[in-house]
């Protein structure tokens, strides 16, 4: 991408950092979220549930 001029190093670094931040935030959200309720075992198999 650098060789073809499609992006410069700063743009790639920013992209890399933003992706890491998004992943870290998602992991933190997942780890802080409560475990699923077993009563929801059949949820989302079909639209009506």
């Amino acid at each position, binding site marked *: 991408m650098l060789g073809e001029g499609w992006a410069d190093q700063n743009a790639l670094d920013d992209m890399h950092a933003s992706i890491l931040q998004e992943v870290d935030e998602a992991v933190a959200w997942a780890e802080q979220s409560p475990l699923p309720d*077993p009563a929801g*075992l059949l949820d989302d198999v079909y639209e009506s549930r």
Partner: protein
Amino acid sequence: MSTTYLEAIREGLWEEMERDPNVFLLGEDIGVYGGAFKVTDGFIEKFGERRVVDTPISEEAIVGAAIGASYMGLRPVAEMQFADFISCGFDMIVNFAAKSRYRWGAAVPIVIRAPSGGGIHGGPFHSQNPEMWFVKTPGLKVVCPATAYDAKGLIKSAIRDNDPVLFFEHKGLYRKIKEDLPSEEYTVPIGKAKVIREGDDLSIITYGAMVWVALEAAGKLEEEGASIEVVDLRTLLPLDRETVCASVRKTSKVLLLHEDTRTGGMAGELAASITESVFEYLDGPIVRVTAPDTPVPYAAVLEDAFLPNAEKVIEKARWLWRY
């Protein structure tokens, strides 16, 4: 020395490759890497890359190549890295392998190994039990060993069989169970169920990893005075209806147990067979314990709720026993 379920499969493959130079393996990462679960670790060093073939990630190509090789007199053993992805080779299996003998008399002596089953928190794409996709396809044979002894004996029988055999090996059993195996060579016949625990009050008919759940439940119910018989089907197609019906005639009550989802599961076929053949022997309704009709959940708490376990079996079996 005790042998694990995984090692038993390794031994069976190894012995058959030593016995017959026409046997060879193919699959994704089975050679240099030794397989996702290390079942074929060390095989490429022993047998060489012409007999342990690393393939591209294409189940259709793997099964298709296996069928073609079998037409040429070889005996391929194809590995699906996870049974879930056998769907990508579905057409080759059900339309070519299964029907080749019927359409033009060509034998297809292939084995397709399929690591299946849940309880390892693998989520919906790495935990399924897809055996029933194939049990309704005449021309195939479908085996589901529960013990190390049967895993070794059945993989050897499958390799020697002149028809296509789907070999569902439960991932949860790979390193969980072990037993002493005979030092002398043996095979286990395809199409023969086994009474793995004798009892008089109630029969649990099951297969694969659920055999161990059934035995655990039977042991606990024995403390309450219930005598539970456990039948391990071992092969789903062709189905050993004779052993199933003999057990029902003996106990007059039957609980059908499988890890697969309920609708279209093996229990339905078993219930129909029992009703057709030994209905007059029944002293209670046929009871099923299965996974519910949903994909296998990823979250551990949901997967625990999804999978049949001893507690669920005990509850249903106790009710039926007292019926």
